């Protein structure tokens, strides 16, 4: 299925979880937050939350600014 991770298209197998999507970008789990289709997915449920076709995943962290 096709999903978007931080604006970039990705082809992922059916049943891919949020945790697996995060691992495509980073091994880091602290200091990171994930939203799927503009809803926050709490860290404790990353491994059990499956993605659906056309999901938009945003993975954010803190940077200098503001």
């Amino acid at each position, binding site marked *: 299925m096709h999903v978007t991770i931080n604006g970039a298209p990705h082809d992922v197998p059916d049943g891919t979880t949020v945790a697996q999507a995060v691992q495509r*970008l*980073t091994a880091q789990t602290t200091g990171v*937050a994930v939203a799927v289709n*503009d809803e926050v997915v709490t860290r404790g449920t990353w491994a059990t939350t499956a993605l659906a076709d056309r999901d938009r995943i*945003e993975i954010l*962290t803190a*940077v*200098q*600014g*503001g």
Partner: protein
Amino acid sequence: MDELIIAGEKFASRLIMGTGGAPSLEVLDQALVASGTELTTVAMRRLDPGARGSVLDVLRSRQIKVLPNTAGCFTAGEAVLTARMAREALGTNWVKLEVINDERTLLPDPIETFDAAERLVADGFVVLPYIGDDPALARRLEQAGCAAVMPLGAPIGSGLGIRNPHNIELIVEAASVPVILDAGIGTASDAALAMELGCDAVLLATAVTRAQRPDLMASAMRAAVQAGRLARQAGRIPRRRYAEASSPTTP
């Protein structure tokens, strides 16, 4: 100096730092140490897998409380989502709420900011909104449950100082939550003036991070905030049109 208290939390420093504009994390680290700050704001952005080092590591190693902001948001919806992601990522329910109206001035949008503030307060956040120097809006945000108000001195990064000291005084007079002068500070005298006007704290970034010697300017800001606070507490003399002799005029 007397402590700054925001939402029941105490800070020995009345200088809140931003992190934007520093040429490197090392320079930022030195500036933060020199500033004496205990509360520093960071932005939230898409994770860059190639990034080296993190501003969070700097803050953690210096035991500075992190204040996530919603810089880059143009709508209440974006700001609420960003605040929620910051809460998840950083484990804090504090947020510097910043909703910008346009790229050219970076002035805060009062309608979107108020909308987001109401939603975030209802969601249990400690909300510190960045606003124009508008006494009416400051009061409405306090009534809406914000933990502080953060009026600008001048546009972000402009270094123009405090363009409307009268409005800042009006905000201070009416507020029972801390007033934090945010944005526009160019040099130490601007920070001192903010405190002399009665602000409870100053938030600045560019004035330090883009100074020729950031650590030295950070020291200057630290001293200026302290001097301004002391002067405010001491009570300045009234301005007079003509001289008043300070020594006896009769021999």
